[in-house]
């Protein structure tokens, strides 16, 4: 499976030619805090199957064995890596097509947040789409500085205002 991805602003881009059969989300407090979220969604890629195609991430050594990568320009969390292991685990939301890699398992359940199971059932009446956002949604779409969900030959690119 050939996959591409990168950060929000597009300064850092990567490509994977194969992924491991271990797509998962991790609830541990390290992954939560690193990603400012309820969990980190990850899939392993052998280093031999992975390359950075634009830029290079910043890194934070979150513990002795673990390094986490992020874009220094926009902050997007990009990977988790055991520095002695032979693979890198990329953040699934940074993929250009995140729906292609569904998570299969969940780890770190000790730290799973109590309302996690209720997320699919948030009050439907309060559920809004981007179309409901009116002028705000239009303005965001018209002026976005997010990199498009595919590789580009130059960066920064006018196309990021798509």
């Amino acid at each position: 499976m050939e996959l591409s991805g990168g950060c929000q602003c597009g300064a850092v881009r990567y490509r994977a030619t194969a992924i491991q059969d271990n797509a998962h989300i991790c609830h541990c407090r390290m992954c939560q805090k690193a990603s400012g979220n309820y969990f980190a969604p990850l899939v392993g890629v052998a280093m031999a199957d992975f390359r950075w195609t634009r830029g290079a991430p910043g890194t934070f050594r979150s513990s002795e064995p673990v390094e986490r990568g992020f874009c220094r320009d926009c902050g997007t969390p990009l990977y988790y890596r055991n520095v002695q292991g032979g693979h890198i685990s990329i953040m699934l939301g940074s993929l250009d097509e995140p729906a292609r890699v569904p998570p299969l398992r969940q780890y770190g359940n000790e730290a799973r947040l109590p309302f996690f199971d209720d997320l699919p059932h948030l009050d439907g009446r309060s559920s809004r789409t981007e179309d409901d956002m009116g002028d705000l949604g239009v303005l965001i779409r018209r002026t976005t500085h997010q990199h498009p969900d595919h590789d580009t030959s130059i960066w920064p690119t006018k196309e990021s205002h798509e």
Partner: protein
Amino acid sequence: MAQNAKAEVHTGGCQCGAVRFRLQGPLVHASICNCRMCQKAFGNFFAPFANAATEPVWTRGKPAIFRSSERAERGFCPQCGTPLTYRWGDEVTALAIGAFDHPNEIVPTIEFAHENRHPFLNHIADLKAEPLGLTDEERDILAILKSFQHPDRDTDTWPVNNGGEL
């Protein structure tokens, strides 16, 4: 939380602790957003945000800012990358719920961009649940793992040698 509203305080910060915030007063908004901007900014399936009626106070450091669209700013820790804030125009700054010291106290009640839900979100309950350490060997590793993550509370000095708070 039925405490005195003025006494209610929420603290939090990035993974490494270089950036810390404090929110005074009750939270007035907690949501998740599935839009592709929030997904990619967080490298995740959605972004969870909460805010009080007032601006957060930065008690250590300040986030770096990426202007993700004309009127939207996203803040993150320049040292470790943790996504921290979202601000639209002059509206009050919202903070990433996972970055709070006690995220389990903040239950989201609103979902934005429902149409862009990652398909996984509808099948959360079907995921196989595995413990963090699957084998005795992995559990031994976890037991001695020296964490460089900032503890889930304010500290007087930084960096702190907190070691091992997972």
